[in-house]
């Protein structure tokens, strides 16, 4: 008796052990789900987005050609996008296929339509596995009103309501301020560089320096005349020594050169109206330096 019991227990233990050692026989496709939006309330031009989720075991790969090609599916349905993403899961793979359809059908009354069915194919070691994606039914509404109002036998039509515009005033102001800033900077630079034909006063000393560049101290009268001309043009009338105070009042930026300018007028008076008809190399250098300094002020650089 004891022997028989022992044998039964041993049999059941062996049977249990065999059961635990046997391989897991997993289905190739463990999950299929078609996620679709509401099946009603569509009109011509609307888009319908489908999400198809397929979870498979590891070795199963989707055959790309089984994914519907974008483009016209029939005379009124267009597949705009078909995007496949693959994710690894604990048990295998998850395929997420996102399809976007657009409807080009204008029914005269509410009508039921369907997206076409298709089949997704998977393969593993040369074996194909199919997963059918069923048709999806939805209703399409006409664009005109339900209670058709007719005037003189025509369908009452009206334009769409104007959409609310996005407030772009802040962007416009920003653009305007930027443009004004750029324009003002450009004008100021052009003014400083004397590019405006009506602002010739900004080029007086530039011209004088240019005229003086080739002169030697034997051509002192030309050098003095060039500087006088530039000063007169800056002052808008002939400037004499006794008018320097008024000149500094009207052109205060030149006051910093008062010492040099006073020296220039005294030197010029002696040369033109007295009996001193020469100048030293140092004095001629001073004249050129004065012209260059005045030019810097003219350009607003000092």
């Amino acid at each position: 008796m004891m022997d028989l019991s022992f044998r039964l227990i041993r049999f059941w233990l062996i049977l249990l052990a065999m059961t635990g050692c046997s391989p897991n026989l997993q289905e190739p496709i463990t999950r299929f789900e078609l996620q679709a939006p509401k099946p009603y309330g569509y009109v011509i031009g609307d888009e319908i987005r489908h999400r198809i989720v397929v979870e498979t075991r590891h070795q199963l790969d989707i055959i790309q050609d089984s994914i519907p090609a974008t483009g016209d599916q029939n005379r009124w349905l267009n597949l705009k996008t078909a995007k496949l993403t693959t994710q690894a899961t604990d048990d295998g793979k998850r395929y997420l296929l996102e399809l976007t359809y657009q409807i080009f059908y204008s029914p005269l009354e509410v009508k039921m339509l369907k997206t076409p069915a298709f089949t997704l194919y998977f393969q593993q070691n040369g074996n194909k596995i199919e997963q059918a994606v069923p048709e999806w039914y939805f209703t399409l509404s006409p664009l005109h009103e339900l209670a058709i109002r007719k005037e003189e036998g025509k369908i009452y039509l009206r334009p769409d309501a104007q959409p609310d515009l996005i407030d772009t005033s802040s962007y416009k102001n920003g653009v305007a301020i930027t443009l004004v800033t750029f324009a003002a900077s450009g004008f100021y630079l052009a003014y400083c560089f004397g590019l405006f034909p009506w602002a010739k006063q900004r080029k007086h000393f530039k011209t004088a320096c240019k005229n003086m560049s080739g002169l030697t101290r034997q051509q002192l009268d030309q050098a003095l005349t060039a500087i006088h001309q530039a000063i007169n043009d800056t002052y808008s009338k002939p400037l004499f020594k006794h008018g320097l105070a008024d000149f500094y009042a009207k052109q205060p930026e030149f006051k910093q050169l008062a010492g040099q300018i006073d020296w220039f007028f005294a030197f010029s008076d002696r040369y033109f109206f007295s009996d001193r008809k020469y100048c030293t190399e140092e004095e001629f250098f001073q004249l050129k330096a004065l012209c260059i300094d005045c030019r810097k002020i003219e350009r607003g650089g000092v």
Partner: protein
Amino acid sequence: MRRSFFTKTMTVEHQLADWRNQALTLENQVNQTVIGLNPLVRHLITAVFTRGHILLEGNVGVGKTTLLRALARGLGGQYQRIEGTIDLMPSDLIYYTYLDRNAKPCVDPGPLLTHGDQLSTFFFNEINRARPQVHSLLLRVMAERSVSAFNTEFQLPYVQVFADRNRVEREETFELPAAARDRFLMEIKIDPPNDDVLLDQLMFDPRYHDVDKLIENVEPGLIAHYQLNDIAQLIQQAVIASPALRKYALALWKATSNPQQFGINLADVDMPQLLHAGVSPRGMSYLIRAAKVRAWLQNRTALFPEDLQAVFPVIMMHRLFLNPSYAYRKDEILPQLVSGILNQIAAP
């Protein structure tokens, strides 16, 4: 020979320096006597050493007579004054007749001849009230510094005429003709000072209430009037004008005839139709002579543009004759024109 020239040059320089010191001393003393008229006094000193006559224009009581008496006191020589009236005749300037205590008719020299050749300052008050015949006699005295009377030629070598024209009253007056005005070196308008401090002094300082005592501040005979003609000539020879200055003066002269050619434009004025006559050669000669005196007073022997500019308005203003259509606006136009000329012509 060289030493002689050097000595002579030094002598002239010293002479000019001494005279300049005397002139500036006189100017200073007159300025302390008649306050607030410094630019006018500088013009008068300039005129004295230019040997030119002055036409003053101003309201009554602004100090014209005091000024001239102070100046005459400093100049030395004799001072004579006459009032212009509508019944004044040329003979009234030369002689006057009266009966002496024995009822014997007598003829005595008039204002022009009383002091003979020692007359240095002759003040003709309200000249525009006198008749043109009187103007005519005065013009000869001014131009030739001589006068004929009693079949005799009387020389007035040091005389300097200061005439006054009242600008307030125009009735029963005889406007000076252009030729008469051209004989005056300068025409100066006198306005009372506008400085409140000076006006306060004139009102409340007793020093300015007694004119006779006031002018005693001026040293009598500070300037030897009988040497003025010589020193004036010396100044003209000593102060030189460079070619650049001559060019500038010529441009000024031309601008007084054709201002539009020098870019001078005045508002509401058709410039080519503006002037009836520009400045005469005598006017330009006066300008240069007065400018040289001004340079000498500035202690220079070279004529600068600023010298011409300083005396240009007082010498030129009464020598620019406007066309009749603009004559009624002369008080507005002439200062603008003179200012426009000075502001438009550069040197060099």
